[in-house]
């Protein structure tokens, strides 16, 4: 069976909705096992104490990127059918900054807040209410910031397209960067733990 299964009409959208529950279950369970129902565990890397967030995130992205490229190479999945998020440079840069700010202040992101709340954390539940309020606030001022919200558009650009390099080269460069960051994180953690 060649993927993606639902867009290829091998599976119906209704089965896709059932799969949504399965995908969410796996995602939520693994996030919990990573320790990401805990705000202190999540924010610890910003104080150089525990880089689990960096390690989990980059391992997942590298496994995902390499896995998809391998499936594409052996013809099991049509990579051209995968949804590539559109690039809008300025709102995505500012949005990323705001999420980084909200993450160290509040302790979570939208996915991990759900895991935290499901682990009994009242602060995670309050964080989730905050997310809803932030979205409603955005919707209210959307007409005013409309031009900015869609600025720096580059279509569905990818790193291989931008740099003119094959996807597997980019994936290997990202994997190498991840290893470098893991090593730096270990050094920083050692340094900080020794100091306290």
């Amino acid at each position, binding site marked *: 069976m060649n993927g993606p299964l639902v867009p290829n009409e091998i599976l119906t959208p209704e089965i896709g909705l059932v799969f949504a529950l399965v995908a969410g279950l796996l995602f939520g369970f693994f996030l919990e096992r990573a320790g990401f129902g805990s705000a202190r565990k999540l924010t610890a890397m910003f104080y150089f104490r525990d880089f689990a967030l960096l390690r989990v995130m980059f391992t997942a992205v590298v496994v995902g990127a390499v896995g998809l490229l391998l499936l594409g190479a052996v013809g099991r999945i049509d990579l051209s059918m995968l949804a590539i998020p559109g690039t809008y440079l300025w709102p995505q840069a500012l949005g990323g900054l705001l999420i980084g*700010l909200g993450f160290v202040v509040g302790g979570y992101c939208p996915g991990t807040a759900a895991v935290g709340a499901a682990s009994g*954390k009242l602060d995670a539940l309050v964080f989730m209410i905050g997310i809803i309020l932030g979205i409603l606030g955005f919707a209210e001022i959307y007409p005013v910031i409309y031009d900015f919200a869609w600025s720096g558009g580059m279509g569905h*650009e990818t790193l291989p397209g931008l740099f003119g390099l094959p996807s597997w080269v980019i994936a290997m460069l990202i994997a190498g960067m991840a290893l470098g960051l893991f090593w730096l994180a270990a050094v920083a953690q050692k340094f900080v733990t020794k100091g306290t």
Partner: protein
Amino acid sequence: MERDNPPAEKPAYWSAYVAGLAIGLTLILTYYVMGHGVGASGAYTQLAARMLETEAPEHAQTNIYLRRYLELGPLSQSWIVIEMLGVLLGGFLGALTARRFQFQIERGPKIGEVDRLLFALGGGISVGFGSRLAQGCTSGQALSGGAVLAVGSWLFTLAFFLGGYMFAWLVRREWQ
């Protein structure tokens, strides 16, 4: 020799690499089945649109941002809403089976409960607003968009870590 009966230990968190591998494989499976990755903030947006519709129907219909989400159909037919229900359930099962489920307000020793909740609310507001600006969050952009090597997703990831390090010092009393 007296042998201490060790207290029932909570199972430790998984190694970050094992957890990352598991999440990466979940990501591959989701792309293989659906053609798109996982997400989170989109579900909150649909919920926000429905809440506004319930509280102020006319206002919701004239809101050009949330109106689009109301046109997507009922929450029960939304992929990302069902996926987030799965995340809640998966997180709950994970916490339960690891004996980590506990009602609490997680905070550092130097901050009170009310202050911690106010910080959580403020942080949530910033994340909610930022997720709409960035058209996704750490799930939809950093993980899913990152795995398909989208330019904007990698810019987002960079900005996310930069934002965290820029402001961490200001709120260090909340965690340490």
